[in-house]
């Protein structure tokens, strides 16, 4: 299954990079969303995929029944998702603000804003 995931994630990265290379700022935002999801999936898959064995311990037990999925990667991704939302909001508002100042949707016209 990891192999199928690898192909999908590679495709997602390609899609995200392609969108971020576009000049339209809205496409940049879409690229960002795709990229953050792709990155989360990358970490998730790299830790190994396990079916039907969440890292939960039953009441009274000390260990989960049998092998369990990697909880560390899950904790990592969980916070990454929430932060990703915050960063996305920040980026979107920043872009919107830049659009208002420059008055153009074209990334190329934002070239001289930092000088």
């Amino acid at each position, binding site marked *: 299954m990891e192999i199928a995931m690898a192909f999908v994630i*590679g495709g997602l990265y390609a899609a995200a*990079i392609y969108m971020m290379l576009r000049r339209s700022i*809205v496409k940049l935002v879409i690229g960002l969303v795709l990229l953050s999801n792709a990155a989360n999936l990358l970490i998730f898959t790299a830790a190994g995929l396990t079916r039907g064995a969440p890292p939960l311990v039953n009441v009274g037990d000390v260990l989960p029944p049998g092998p369990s999925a990697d909880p560390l990667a899950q904790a990592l991704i969980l916070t990454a998702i929430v932060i990703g939302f915050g960063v996305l909001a920040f980026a979107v508002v920043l872009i919107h603000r830049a659009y208002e100042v420059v008055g153009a949707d074209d990334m190329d016209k934002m070239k001289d804003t930092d000088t």
Partner: protein
Amino acid sequence: MLYAILSTFVLAAFSPWVHRLAGRYSGWVLALLPAALFVYFASFLPAINAGETVVIVTPWMPGLDIQLSFLVDGLSLLFALLISGIGFFIISYAGRYLEGDRDLGRFYVVMLSFMGSMLGLVLADNLIAMFVFWELTSVTSYLLIGYRNEDPKARKAALQGLIVTVGGGLALLAGIVMLAIAGGSYELSEILNSGDAVREHALYLPMLILILLGAFTKSAQVPFHFWLPNAMAAPTPVSAYLHSATMVKAGIYLLARLNPSLGGTEVWFTVLALFGAVTMFLGVFLSFRSTGIKSVLAYSTIMALGTLTMLIGIGTETALLAAMTFLLAHSLYKGALFLIAGILDHEAGVKDFLQTGGLRGALPITSALAMLSALSLAGVVPMLGFVAKEAMLESVLEAPGLVPVLTLLAMASAILGVAVAAIVGIRPWFGPRVETPKRPHEAPPALIAGPMVMAGLGLVFGLGPGLADGGILAAAARAVNGGVPVETYLSLWHGLNWPLAISALALVTGLLLYSRWDRARERLAWVDIAARFGPERGYDRLMDGIVRISEWQTRLLQSGYLRYYIMFIVLATAVMVGVTAQIFDVSAGPLRLQDLRFYELAILAVMGASALFAVLSQSRLGAVAALGAFGFTVALTYVMFSAADVGITQILVETLTVILLVLVLFRLPGFLGLSPRLIKLRDAAVAMAGGGMVMLLLLSTHNAREFPSIAWYFIEEAVPAGQGRNVVNVILVDFRALDTLGEIFVLALAAVGVYAMIRFRAEDRK
């Protein structure tokens, strides 16, 4: 000892307040510290003269076995006495000289810090500590040279001095690390005892070259001499200090200090003697053809530095004692002469010898002191300069090699030296009175005290060389000689010998040369043309080149187009990962397709399709809807593979993301078809490269598990240590709580950022 050095920095920090409180007497008040330090250092004299070496160790980070250690022997004590003694006069002088200057407070801060750094440099036993102080002197002298920071010339000179000396410092750092490896210790006191091990070490030659680079840049040896005359842009007291006892002498100190370890080899002798002799001659030659008061003095300093380097290179007992004597003599007369140059500027407003003449009547004491110092510079009986020069000529004649070359250069320098001394000692004072910009009058005590003491000492030590010789100079020479006492001694009268004959010849020829000074300078006008191809030109070229390269690479990398930045990052990462994969022979491993399940594949297919739709969609609404669908398939994937918490989070965030995009994106214009087809293909290729790299990376990690996962630790400890059955949550709030704290902080920061951006815009509109 530590407190002695620290006290200068502490006083430096408070000096602006002292300045404000003490007003016009601030120079005298602050000069009390160097005076006290001088007395403190002088208290070491009996012990050092008795042949002792004092090592003072202060634990600094005892846990890491790092300590601050100081080494007091003849050499470091000689320097410490010069630094604090001359420092006393410089600071009291500066208080008067720069009186009323708006930045005088800042001047004191830097000057005292500089003094502290110099003291640290000469007293440090630990090589790293010495290096730190070495660099501190570079930095503080940069601030001193650039004191008149509104003057572009001063800024340029300061930067030049900084770049040359810090560049050399970099080489020095590498050199001393090698020295520590070869000597088996970072403590000078231990390295100095393992000279043979250092000299026979395989790293000896590279180490020597690097250390010499550091010493030569600092001490303005050819071809790095050009920064020193430019450093005259500093106020005169600074020049006096830099030239007489400090900064440029740091390189000499280093050479003398390391002589027991590095010296005594063929390379050491050849390089030092040749570079020193050439520097000596070039310095005095350039000095002879200058007319600016400070510039004549600055070039003659280069001569002195060359002489010292040469003497240390020769390395015989006579030469080492000569070097120490010359060091003392030069510090005394050069300090005095620079301060007198300051008096001429301050009291008569002249900066050039051509503007001067006949000032003897107006400044009787100053002129007498100038003549006395000039006698020492010329090496005339009965000054200390004479003793030093005789010893120098004697060592050159007895040098272990290169005698003809060195003798010739030394003779030529002696002749020109006399001529330069005549320019300094005769030109401003005798002859017809020349009108000066200011009405000349005698200098106040604060200005005259320094030259008086220094010139006086030059005379006293000259009349009785035993006074200095029996004391600190012999101890210093012994330290440079590796602890072995030198058998020779100084005296005013050595009998009729070759050095005396050369001196006499030099005196006559030099005075003759001085009488034709004006014509000689015209004849030497070609030097200006030659100087265009000199090392300073090389420095300028180098600087221009660096600027041009950085401009070129900035244009290349900082294009201002986001997509080129992304492209660079993606391609660079892809190439680096690809090369690494090649090197380490990472392979993707066999494709096992039987592991697949139909419904999982279906979800993945929907995921890919919705992402593709988001990319291709021509409308914003379509793209956002596709993103929503995509997000939910991602959430399903998490749930399928045992990540319930992550799945729930993903669903919730996805909902909020869609709302966010709806709120903002529709206030932006719709998609535009901006890029031509070819560009799209190019971008697609870059995207494929990036995506392909990630895919291969993932495939290879699937096969290569080189380390056991640390996940099991968390799983096993969750209930016993974390008292929670949801391992993911236990990690988040207990095991890795500090990480989580950082993460919620980032989240809060992003929210505040959003709030600020929108609120401030609203306020702008109002």
